[in-house]
């Protein structure tokens, strides 16, 4: 066994810049994507300028500050809890040889496929004042009133259950990319298992951890479904109400700009925080980390993870199953489900691949970019990501109806909408992987006579593929459940599972929603299983070779 650790990589940050110039085409693509993503922002500025009186009134309303603080508080709480959940679960499924590890790894990520409004319904149906649990405790224990589910607690619980997989997947991908020789060295030098974890592994996980947390925080900032049902009004709630209650587009745009400001601060803060660190191995060869034998703790952890993901999947699935059985008993037939299923799979797969393909040039520009400006190319993407779905959807409606009427409400535009909505998910994951690659490899390839694009295709891309695949999965799972953009920008008559569920639940036709809900939850399993199988295969081959 060869254990080589070069100290500087860990203790003295290596500043990577001005050693290698990214190919111009690459950067150009990234710049174009960033400019497109600036479109919605420009729309918001223009819209609030048009109705500056209303926009200013909305911003100056005393309640706006309260709502903003609530938004930020909820985002911080959910992001923090997600880390506490995701870190041990990722460690368990990646580094401990617990039986059924692969199935567990899939299971822990699946709650992500649950739309937050469905999860909120399920939480209310189960934990609400008249829910199943209240009935049970009332009958068995004689407890009449459960703690209030509405408000912060319910919103926090619901959003944590659907978003912790972001951190989980990011951390797993990073864990796989860490050279275990760093950890081996620490152990050889006499550190304990836990001390090694905290002093070596966690700092190395930081890029993945932080990008996962940012995704979670911004998801929470833009969420409407869960907070509306669980009645915890945030800034996004207020933005939706400007449209729904007073058709006031200027006020909505003004409030959305406030959200944009917060997002920019968060993204820039994150950038500042981990600017001067290097996370790649400077020498030595890759090998997969060994898996520890499961301890008592690991068993407990597995049980805990099963409980969390079981609750997150079981609640909505249970409620949907109940309605499905009831609909079957009544002999109801809902046409168009299989067609919507195909639509959902097709458009989500296409959106995922397009989004990840677009994410590569952006991630590269950020990681290897020569100037400060290039490294900020993804800021517009984060801003688009943090906009409430309806704001982005209406911005795209306005822009495309005016400037691209030919593309308006066509599949290509829908794909662009999805890409704008979810690019940061892909960029974050791809970046976390690229960051772990040493620029020396590329330099070596160049020295050996490869052109930049050849070096890119033969060195960087193959090495980044595991990360790319998990990014595809991430975008796929979020696209499947996307609603506001789909409702407004899809070709007319194009129904997906998510829009079917929405159509049914909007007027309390619960039985119509049942089968699409079960299928929606099911669509996550197939790609997750494939990803897990493929990862296992490459790790096995790595071991054999």
């Amino acid at each position: 066994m060869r254990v080589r650790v070069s100290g500087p990589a860990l203790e003295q940050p290596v500043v990577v810049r001005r050693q290698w110039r990214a190919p111009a085409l690459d950067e150009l693509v990234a710049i174009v994507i960033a400019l497109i993503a600036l479109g919605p922002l420009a729309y918001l500025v223009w819209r609030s300028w048009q109705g500056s009186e209303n926009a200013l009134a909305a911003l100056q309303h005393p309640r706006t500050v309260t709502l903003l603080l609530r938004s930020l508080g909820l985002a911080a709480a959910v992001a923090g809890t997600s880390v506490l959940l995701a870190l041990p679960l990722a460690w368990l499924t990646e580094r401990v040889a617990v039986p059924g590890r692969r199935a567990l790894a899939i299971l822990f990520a699946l709650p992500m496929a649950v739309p937050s409004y469905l999860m909120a319904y399920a939480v209310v149906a189960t934990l609400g004042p008249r829910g199943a649990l209240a009935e049970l405790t009332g009958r068995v224990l004689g407890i009449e009133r459960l703690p209030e589910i509405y408000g912060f607690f319910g919103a926090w619980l619901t959003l944590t259950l659907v978003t912790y997989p972001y951190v989980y997947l990011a951390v797993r991908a990073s864990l796989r990319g860490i050279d275990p020789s760093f950890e081996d060295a620490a152990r050889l030098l006499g550190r304990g298992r836990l001390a090694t974890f905290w002093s070596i592994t966690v700092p190395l996980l930081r890029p993945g951890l932080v990008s996962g947390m940012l995704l979670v925080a911004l998801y929470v900032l833009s969420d409407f479904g869960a907070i509306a049902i669980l009645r915890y009004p945030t800034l996004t709630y207020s933005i939706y109400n400007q449209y729904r209650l007073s058709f006031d587009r200027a006020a909505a745009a003004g409030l959305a700009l406030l959200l944009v400001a917060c997002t920019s601060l968060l993204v820039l803060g994150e950038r500042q925080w981990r600017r001067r660190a290097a996370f790649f191995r400077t020498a030595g060869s890759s090998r997969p980390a060994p898996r520890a034998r499961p301890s008592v703790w690991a068993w407990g952890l597995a049980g805990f993870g099963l409980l969390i993901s079981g609750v997150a999947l079981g609640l909505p699935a249970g409620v949907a199953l109940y309605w499905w059985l009831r609909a079957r008993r009544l002999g109801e037939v809902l046409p168009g489900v299989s067609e919507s299923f195909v639509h959902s799979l097709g458009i989500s797969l296409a959106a995922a691949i397009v989004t990840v393909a677009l994410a590569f040039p952006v991630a590269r520009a950020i990681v290897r970019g020569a100037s400060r400006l290039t490294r900020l190319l993804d800021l517009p993407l984060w801003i688009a990501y943090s906009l409430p779905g309806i704001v982005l959807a209406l911005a795209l409606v306005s822009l495309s109806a005016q400037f691209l009427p030919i593309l308006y409400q066509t599949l290509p535009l829908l794909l662009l909408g999805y890409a704008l909505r979810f690019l940061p998910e892909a960029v974050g994951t791809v970046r976390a992987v690229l960051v772990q690659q040493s620029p020396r490899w590329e330099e070596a390839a160049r020295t050996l006579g490869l052109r930049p694009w050849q070096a890119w295709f033969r060195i960087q891309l193959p090495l980044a593929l595991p990360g790319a695949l998990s990014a595809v999965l991430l975008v796929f799972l979020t696209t499947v459940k996307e609603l506001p953009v789909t409702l407004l920008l899809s070709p007319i008559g194009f129904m997906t599972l998510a829009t079917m569920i929405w159509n049914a639940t909007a007027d309390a036709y619960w039985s119509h929603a049942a089968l699409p809900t079960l299928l929606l939850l099911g669509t996550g399993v197939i790609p997750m299983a494939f990803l897990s199988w493929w990862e296992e295969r490459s790790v096995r081959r790595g071991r054999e070779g």
Partner: protein
Amino acid sequence: MRRRDLLRLGGFGLAAGMTVLAGCTGGSPSPTPAGSAQTPTGGAERTPAPVSLTPVQSPKAPTPAARSGTITVYSGRSKSLIGPLLDRVGEELGLDVRVRYGDTAELATAILEEGERSPADLFFGQDAGALGALAKEGRLMQLPAELLERVPKPYRSPQGLWVGVSGRVRTVVYNTERVRPEEIPASILDFAGNERWRARLGWAPTNGSFQAFVTALRRLRGEETARAWLAGIKALNPQVFSKNSSIVQATIKGEIEAGFVNHYYLMRERAQAGQPLPAENYFYTNGDPGGLVNVAGIGILASSRVPDLGLRLVDYLLSEPAQRYFSEQTFEYPLLEGVPAHPDLPPLHQLNPPAIDLSDLDDLRGTLALLQEVGLL
């Protein structure tokens, strides 16, 4: 080389995804069941249709290929609710009716954003407020008196820019095992502060229909009365729900004794249960604000290039077969003179709702502020 395999796989996946989609939206006759509004083209372009100027109802349904024109409806009413009706309209009129389903307010806002280029020909709104908002921006076309006059005056736009298609009534749903009908106050205002109802009521302050009712209350009785009523009900510690349907379900189970809802949710529960349920609707037929009648209505966009097709569609929705659909399938009130409401409901002309211009329900800003002030949002 497994990495290469994977690259190929990714390319294949993309190709497969796009092929599947192309297959679904492409030109081939779609194998879609009748329940879907699938259409052959994906784009927003439309063919100007040859149109007969008088609304004609063709006796038999032509094949889709022979349909005489294409019309686009933005529907704020869900597919589960009115999908079957709109499918039937297309068949009856020989039109290719394309429907975008969505939230009423969001679709109305989208029409405002699209401007003159809006692909929509018609807007079918869940409530009068959204129609009022479009009318105020000058986006709706004047409707002919012949169509407007089929519907009683309170249920259409005073300027003739939109027309109500079906009516929904605010009621008090109550559990018949716990409440005698004579216990229900003669005005909804008298619920406030009435200890008989402490912790026994249900309401949904975030629900759109409830907010429309509060707006009407403000208009009819003033801000102070509305504020006092909201605070008075809140002080009784009612159970809070997010939807009318959950209020009705809780009333049936006896978890609450009464709640403020729209009339049709109980009817839908009955239809699904297939057995008598211990709940009834109480209708305010004395002009009380509690008996507000709101409508779902339709308007033709001023920017529509096929307004005559739109007129034919509105004509059909205000004809007897379509109105029967509302009374039999959605349990709403048909607004066309001569089409009876569901037999379990009091007839429309006996409702005697409070006098209010439904277009005035579009400004909910004050209602929102009031609800926030009382601490309900």
